[in-house]
Structures are given as structure tokens and as C-alpha cells.
């Protein structure tokens, strides 16, 4: 029995994927866009993932997350909204069979929807639609950088096993503009967003307990993505990795031993009782970069009983530090899984 799964982006969805007997990784054709932004039905699991830090005309900060999962015949979706000035966080989830008009994933182009949430792309322009009971967010995201193929030409290894990999593509910076309608008031939004798309068999290496994932966007035009797959004793496995995208020029792949992590605080969830790290110091001596990452709001935990059944923390962060002696600021998103003790709720017992 294989232990389900891992992904740099999101463990939760992977947790209940049935393992597809391995499409041989070596034979994978090179990725092409926009076709590979579309759905890959032969992969057991797949997801499209947007996060971003936004602000309205008054400069009030917001964070958003919108994720569409496809797991076999099922379509799941999570969305979260962080209001930095009110210090509030809300999330919602959806779950369906993949069915026309209800939850769909187009092939050959980026066009996904689940009920009244949707994401689509034409060229470098992505449109997101997010509806809550009392809030509507419509965003136009314009890619500022080309897609980054994570891992080996987009093949990201999570472990030594045959199925412990995913196809992983990111767009590290999209300029966001749109509107927020909240309680009848309409305000313009601007900001920066991040896009991830992963698909694959979805197996996580044995012994993995969870992961920490960061997508940081610096004001100098560079981005940093890092993930650590943790073992039960908290150590990172060798398959932890990342990428640094300079303002111009080719991305720099990072290995696990390039990065030093230190948690600077703790937050205990009143809902799940999970104890999460809150704030980090991350140092990459190779890039002479060191930054502090602090959550915009402490509580950005999602308890997704109705869809994935996983509890995780995914939240907007503020970044400050320096690179090569120069002050560096930025914003980003962090994802922390495997802390609540509830994120592996027995799906593997089958």
C-alpha cells in the first residue's frame, strides 16, 4: 500500500488520490503552452492554484487563495480571503463529481470552474471569478513572467519512488487588477498573484509527515519558491527544493541544502488544536539572501471537512530582509501542512 502523496503545492488533494500506475516519467513529452495549462485527465490528480496579495484604493491589504482540484472523477475547490486591516480570514470549499455545468476542467486550454468559481486564461491574461455569499471578487491577472518549469523541465520529484513525482508549472508573477464587491460596496483591487499547476500520480514518499511551502514575491522583481517535505521528526527530506527567479534571466533551481529555515514563532489553532510555526527566518547563503516571513494574519487555517477533509494553513505573508546587503521587501504566501494531526484522516486505509 502506497502512502498517498505529496506535492509542492498541496498535500491535501493528493491525500485521496488513487495512484495511477506510472506513466513513465522518462517518456514524458516536453510541456507546451497553453495546451499544458489545460487538464490532463490521465493524471490521477491535478490542481490549479492561485494566490495573491492585493490592496484596495485606500491601501488596505488583502490576501486571496483560489484552488481547483481534480482527483479522479471528483472536482474540489478551496478559496480563502484574508483581510489584513480587519485581521479576518474566511475560507470556503466545494466538492462535486466532474460534471458539465457543475465542475469542469477543459483540456488544451486553461478553463476550470466549480459552481460559481472559475479561472480561465487567454494568452498571458488570466481571469478569476470568485463568489461568496457576501463578497464577489473578479480579477484580471496578467502574467509578468513566462511559466517556470519546476524540477527537471517541469518534472518535480517528491521522493525516490516511481510515482513520487508531479508535473509542476508556475507563473511566479502576475499583475492583478480587479474589483471587490463587499456588502454592496465596490472597490478596485490591485496587486500581485502567483499561479501553480501540478498534475501527476500523486504519491508522497513513505515517512513524509507534511510540508512547508513558500512563494515569495520581492519588490525588486524577483521571486522565490521553496518547499520542504518534512519527516516525522521535522527534518526536511532531500527532495525538498525550490527555485529563485531573478528580475530578468533564467530561474535558478535550488536544492534542499541551499536553504536554511528557522521558525520564529508559534500559533495554536483554536479550531484544530494544531500548533503551526508562525514566522520564519529563511537564509540562502548561495544567493546571499536572508529574509523574515511574517503572516499577515495569524489565523489563516482551512478546515476542509466537506471536500478534501484536510486541515492546513495557507496564508498571506509580509516579507522583509536583504539581498546582497540591499534591503529587500515583498509579499508572499505560505502553506503549512501536517501540523494539525488531522490532515491524514484515514484515507489510506483502503
Amino acid at each position: 500500500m502506497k502512502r498517498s502523496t505529496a506535492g509542492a503545492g498541496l498535500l491535501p488533494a493528493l491525500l485521496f488520490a488513487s495512484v495511477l500506475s506510472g506513466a513513465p516519467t522518462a517518456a514524458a513529452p516536453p510541456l507546451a503552452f497553453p495546451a499544458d495549462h489545460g487538464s490532463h485527465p490521465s493524471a490521477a490528480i491535478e490542481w490549479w492554484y492561485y494566490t495573491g496579495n492585493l490592496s484596495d484604493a485606500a491601501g488596505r491589504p488583502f490576501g486571496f487563495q483560489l484552488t481547483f482540484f481534480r482527483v479522479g472523477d471528483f472536482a474540489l475547490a478551496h478559496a480563502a480571503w484574508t483581510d489584513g486591516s480587519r485581521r479576518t480570514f474566511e475560507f470556503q470549499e466545494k466538492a462535486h463529481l466532474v460534471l458539465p455545468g457543475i465542475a469542469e476542467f477543459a483540456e488544451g486550454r486553461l478553463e476550470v470552474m466549480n459552481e460559481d468559481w472559475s479561472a480561465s486564461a487567454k494568452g498571458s491574461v488570466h481571469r478569476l471569478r470568485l463568489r461568496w455569499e457576501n463578497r464577489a471578487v473578479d480579477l484580471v491577472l496578467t502574467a509578468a513572467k513566462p511559466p517556470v518549469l519546476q524540477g527537471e523541465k517541469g518534472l518535480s520529484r517528491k521522493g525516490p519512488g516511481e510515482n513520487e513525482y508531479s508535473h509542476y508549472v508556475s507563473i511566479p508573477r502576475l499583475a492583478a487588477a480587479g474589483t471587490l464587491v463587499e456588502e454592496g460596496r465596490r472597490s478596485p483591487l490591485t496587486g500581485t498573484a502567483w499561479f501553480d499547476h501540478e498534475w501527476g500520480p500523486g504519491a508522497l514518499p513513505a515517512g513524509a509527515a507534511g510540508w512547508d511551502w513558500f512563494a515569495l514575491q520581492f519588490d525588486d522583481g524577483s521571486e522565490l519558491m521553496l518547499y520542504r517535505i518534512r519527516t516525522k521528526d521535522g527534518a526536511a527530506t532531500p527532495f525538498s527544493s525550490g527555485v529563485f527567479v531573478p528580475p530578468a534571466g533564467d530561474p535558478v533551481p535550488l536544492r534542499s541544502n541551499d536553504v536554511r529555515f528557522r521558525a520564529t514563532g508559534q500559533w495554536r489553532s483554536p479550531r484544530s488544536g494544531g500548533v503551526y510555526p508562525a514566522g520564519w527566518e529563511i537564509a540562502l547563503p548561495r544567493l546571499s539572501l536572508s529574509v523574515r516571513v511574517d503572516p499577515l494574519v495569524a489565523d489563516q487555517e482551512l478546515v476542509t471537512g466537506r471536500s478534501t477533509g484536510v486541515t492546513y494553513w495557507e496564508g498571506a505573508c509580509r516579507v522583509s530582509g536583504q539581498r546582497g546587503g540591499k534591503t529587500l521587501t515583498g509579499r508572499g504566501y505560505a502553506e503549512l501542512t501536517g501540523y494539525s494531526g488531522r490532515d491524514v484522516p484515514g484515507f489510506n486505509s483502503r
Partner: protein
Amino acid sequence: MTALRLVVRALVTGPARRHPLRLVLPVAGVAIGVAAIAAIHHANRSVTESFRQAAASVAGRSDFTVTGPVGVPLEAMRAFSFLWDVGSFAPAVTGIAVLQDGSGEAADLLGVDLAGDGAVRSWELVAPADRSSLLRLAGGDNVFLSEGFARRHGLRPGSPMRVVAGGVLHTLHVGGLLRFSGVARAAGEDLVVTDLLTAQRILGKIGRADRVDVVLRPGVDRAKVRRALASRMPAGLRIEAPDRSAASADRMVRAFRFNLNALGSLTLLVGVFLIANAVSISVLRRRPEIATLKAVGASRGLIFAVFLIEGAAIGVAGTLLGEAGGVFLARAALRAIGGTIANIYLPTARIAGGSFASPALLAGVVGLGAALLATVIPAAEATRVPPSPAMRAGSVEAVRRARLVPRALASVAALGLAAAASFLPPFDGFPFFGFAAVGLIVAALSLGAPLFVLVAARAAGRLLRAPLGAPGPLGAGFFGGALARNGIAVTALAMALGMTLAMIVTVASIRETVRVWVETTLRSDLWVKAAAGKSSGIVGDLPEDVLAFLAAVPGVAAVDPFRARDAAFDGRPYTLGSGDFRVVARIGGLPFLNGADPRQTAERARREGAALISEPFARRFGVSPGKRVTIDTPRGPRSFAVAGVYRDYSNDRGTVMLDRELYLQVFGDRRVSSVAVLAAPGVDPAALRRAIATAARGRYALSISTNRELRREVLRIFDRTFAVTRGLEAIAVAVAILGIANALLASAVERRRTFGLLRAIGASREQIRGAVLVEAALTGIVATGAAVAAAAAFAYLLLAVINPQSFGWTVSLDVPLTTLAGAAALVLGASILAGVFPGRLAAAVDPAAALAEE
């Protein structure tokens, strides 16, 4: 207060204590009526409520439902996505699974988007405990059951569950247990819920849902959304109100239930007559007491009030007894009715006993009301008793005699109205006027009864003198003397017996018609359908490949596929069928209404792409050959010419038949409902059946009948359908005979003085007894005579008006004289027997004591 107490004691409690038996009959009358009403109302209500709940457990909270002629293609739901801004929607696949655990029960199989269905349907997973497991367990062959269903069938999460669905045996697994909430609770008990995709696969409905249920958020303009949806969705789909399926299920059995209600009302009517009779007698009997009370100054109001109090007391006692009896009677009625409905109309119908509160309340109100109503007239009469204790006997009768002529005129008028009503067409598809005519005949009967009694008494007084001597005219005199009382007894018995005789004729006629029809129509040797468990009808369908399979079995000469599915026109359900018209063109066997040649008609229909319609359809929808029928197809409504109307007694909703080729082309629905198999010359059908069963093992789950079995089955179902009817009639007749006994017994008590006098002037005990028996016999004879006349009218109305209007069947008259004569003789005998005890009582009167009473 003291005066009232004394009056009550003098009039009510005193006599009651002295003759407690006198109270038994009115109380029993109320009790029987109340029990019958409660039971029938409860059964009917339970049927409606069960349908509503069954529909609600599928429709959930939906505001409306989208369906289509062959379901809703899933692709069509793209047009629905705008609904997410105002609410949500959820597709469902429905079908039937027949359990293979020895119970043979058929259950509704419901396939839904388990992960996302919560907004529409009300259930929660109770085992395994956490809800997210639903996702893990969805798909595969997992099904979800209510706790009650699982318990009933000995299933637990993880248990395998063998069912036949879509004509194939499937081994499913119990994935978990569900708890239904809200209105779905009772009916949800019998649902087998599974993943939409699993249900599609099992039922052979790939790519389609049977319905899409739409739930809108509060405050959303439903009409506007409905219009928007109608304009966006593909042609051929239709939007229905959510209670439509309950309504249409209910409508399907409406004729059946109406039948029950009519018979129930009959029992009630007989009961009310009985109460009126009993109360009236008990009032008349106390005339001396009343006179004395009035002589000492009791007011008319006081007398009236006291009798009303007594009526209320009788009503309360009878109602309480009746309610108690009703609980048991209701259980029996429900079992019988539920069985019939499951057998004939809806194989998965599980008629659960609903709340008894409302039927009990209704029956109580009717019982009390009837008791009071029955008291009012006699009580009013009591107030007219003159205060002289030496009041002339018979003056009450004199008052009544004066009303004979107006009553007779009213009776004739009622008959005229009944005749007029019998010509009126159905109203809202229902023969209300036919039933109104039945009611009018009953009215004419009750109005005319005293006259019949009088005429019969006069004639009998003359005719019976020679053969019977003194007891003849004496009995005739008794009979004619108690006009009012005997009029009621005669009416009650004539009504009950008349309806019974009419039903005997009707049922016999329909049965004979059906028997002849089955003989002509059933020409194939074997009849194959999906295994149906204990249900007699077609339960589920078969994949198309079963045709090739059957054709390949050695000994099979030809296979003739038949397809039937539910359709609706203008919201009224009918059956859309398809068959191979070439087979009809070759072997005939379809009896056409106008006597047209079946071969030519079928051939022409096939060539011209025309439809053949059944007689009930033609009647219900007013369509005739040469006209066109409009059918909802996946590409919108399409009209077809009607080539012929054929007789069909298998279905009262009406059927439209298309040639299979045309049907496939229009609907693309390739599944078959049943297959007729012709054996090759010289092949024994029984042997062929064994060969097919052997070949099908492991591949199809089939139920195969031989021609003869099927014929027998048709008649067996038929007889079962009418079993309830017969039970109700028996009750009505028994109640009516009880009424006669009551009337005679009352006479025996009341006429003590008369009997005493008769004995004093020389009548022997035998002569007295004989006279009472003569009176009993006359009551029976007049009632039977009236019943025969009424039965002729009832039978005409049932066969020529009500039946064609409600079932749409032409029935040829078949009068089972022996049965009718037997029934009439039985009733006549019973009514004479009813005179035995009163006769003995009368004969035992001691003349001196009786005369001394004055």
C-alpha cells in the same frame, strides 16, 4: 339543574339502565361507521403521503426539476451554469434495483453527485462517522442505505448486496449508512443511494441523468429564473414543479383510490342510516315518558336538549369504540391497499402507515356529527309529542305519511337528474358526474323507500292472506306500519346490496373482457423481462444486446422487443411504447377498436411513421385516428399521425406506440422493457424457457413467463386488485343487515302492547313469530328488489360512464346471473334470519303483563 337531571334520568339513563341492550345498536352503528371511515381515510392518506415523501426524498428541497423525454443529457447542464449565481442544481439518475436476498423487494435506486448533493437532498452519512468518507466511498460499487433498510435486510457497511438492475445481476457493496431528514425521512428509508456514475453504469444510462433538481436561494425570483432557464436549455427538456412526480404517482392511483373512497362513503352512508334508524327508534319508544314529562311541564326545548345530549353520548361512546377498531381495520386496509399498489402501479411503492391522528379526527367528527344529525329529527319529533299520556298511537306515522307524495316527487326528480348527469363528460379527467349520478340514485332510493314499503305492504297484505293466513297480512301490516323505520332499513340494505351487485356485474364484465383480450393479444410463446422479484409488473429494463442473445438461443424463431417508458403530455402521465410493427404486420394480434385489420394497420403505421394509440389514451386525450399526437422528443415536441386505436386493458394511463425503428431514430433509447419470444415450430415453450434461463446465467437476470402463465398472472393480478373492493362491500352489506335486525328488534320491543293484545285476542305464539318473520322477509324482499333496480342503474353508470371516463376501457357486459342470484338470495336469507330473534322476543310477550302496562 335538578329538573334537567330528573328529566335525563326519566328519559335517558333510566330507560338505558332498564334496557341496556337498546344502547348497544346505536353505539355499534356509530362505531362501525367511524372505524370504516378512519381506516379508509388512513389508507388513502398514507398512500398520498408515502408518494409525497418518496418524491420528496428524491426531489429534496428543489424549487423545480428539469426532465426530458429520455432524461437530461449531462452536456445540457452547461446551459444551467448561470444558476450558480442564484442557487444550485444537482443531477440524479433513478432506477429500480430488485434485491436478491430472498425478499424480492424492489427499491428505488438513486444515483447522485454524492460529494455535492447536500444543497438539494437532505441526508447525512452516519456510518462511517466522518463525512469526508463519502468522497472516498463514492464510486466503485458502493451504495448507501438508510439504517432502517440496512437493518431490515441484514446489511452493514462493507456487506455485499446482490441486486438485479437493468436486467443484470450486480454485486454492490454497502459503503455506508445514511440518515434522511425532513420530509424524506420515511420514504428515504427505502432508497438505495449510489454515486451518479455508478448508477449510470448499472442502469445503462451513460451520459444522462433522469432529472436535474434546482434549488434557488431565498429571495430569488423563481419565475424569472425559470423563464431564463427555459430560454437557455436545449429543446426537448421541460421544467416541472417539484411535487409533480408525487402528483403524477398519486394521479396514477387516483382512479383506484377514488374507487376506495366511493365505497368508503357507501359504508359511511349505510352507517349514518343505521345511526339515524337506531336513534329514531329509541326516541319513538319513549313516547309515553315524553308525554308524561310534558304533562308535568317539561318544555319542548328541554326535551330536545335531552335527546341531543343522549345523541352526543352515543356519538362519543361509538366514536371511541370505533377509533379503537379503526386502528386495527386501518392496518388491514393499508396492507391490502399497499399490496395492490405495489403490485399493479409502482413496484417500489412502500406504503408506510402515516399518522393516524388526522383520520381519527375526521372519523371522530363524522361519527359525532352523524350521531347528532341522526338525533336532530327524532328529537324534534319528540318535542311534538302531545302531553297526554293517552296519545293516539300512530300519530307520528300519520305525520310521516303526509310527506309521502312530496318525497316521491323528489325521488323522481333525483332520478331525472341522475340520468342527466350520466350524459355529462368527465371533469378534469375524472368522472365526477358519473359519481354524482350514483349519489343521486342513492338519494332517489332513500326518498322513494317509504313509498316502496307502503306499496309493498299493501300488496303483500292482499297477496299473503291466502298462502300464509293471518301472519301474512299481520306481518304486512307491521311492515307498512313502521314506514319511516322500515324505509331507512330498506334504503340502507338496498344501497349496500345494489352497489355490491353492480360491482359484481362490473368486475365480472371487466374480467371477462380482459380474459378475451388477453387470449387474442398474447400470441408469443414466451415473455422475457428483467427479473422483478416479487412484483408482477415490469421492473427495470434490459440492455439491447439481450435481443441478439435471445435470438441466438437454439429453438428461438423470432424475438419481438417492446419498450415502454413514462411520458407526460400537458402534465398528464402516459406510457410511450415501441414495438416491432413488422411483427404485428405479420402475426396480427392487436385488436383495433373499429375492427380494422391489425396487419394492414400496423404495416401502414410503419410505412408512414404513424403512431398506434391505446383506447385509454384516445379517451383521456381525445385523440382519434386521422388526428395527430404530439410527443416530447429529445429535439422538442414532434407530432405523429394516429393510424389506429387498439384495445388495451393493461394500462389505464394510455399508451402511444411507435415502431421500434422510428422510436430508436427519434429517441436514441436502445434499451428494451420486455421481449416476446416465438418458439420455432415443434419446440416446447417450457423447454425453451429452460434453455434461455441456462444460457442467461451469469449474464442477464431474467424473468421468463410462458404464454399460459402470463395469462393466468394477468387474471390473478386482476382478482387481487378487486379484493379490497369486495371486502368493503361485504362490510357495507353486513352493516345493512345489522340495520334490519336492529329495526326488527326495536319493533319487537316497541310493539309489546300490540303483541300482548294480539295474544289476548287469540293469536298464537307461532302466528306472532310468523308475522315478524313476514315483516323481515318483506324488508329483505323490498330491499332486494330496490337493490336490483339500483344495481342495474349503478352497473350502467359504472360500466358505461365511470369506467370509460376514468380508465378509458370499453367493456362488454357480462352478467353472472348465478353469482348475482346467489348474492341476492344470501342477503334475503340473512334478512329473514335477522327476524328470528325479534320474532322470538315478540312471541314471548305475556299478554296480561303487556296489557297491564297501559
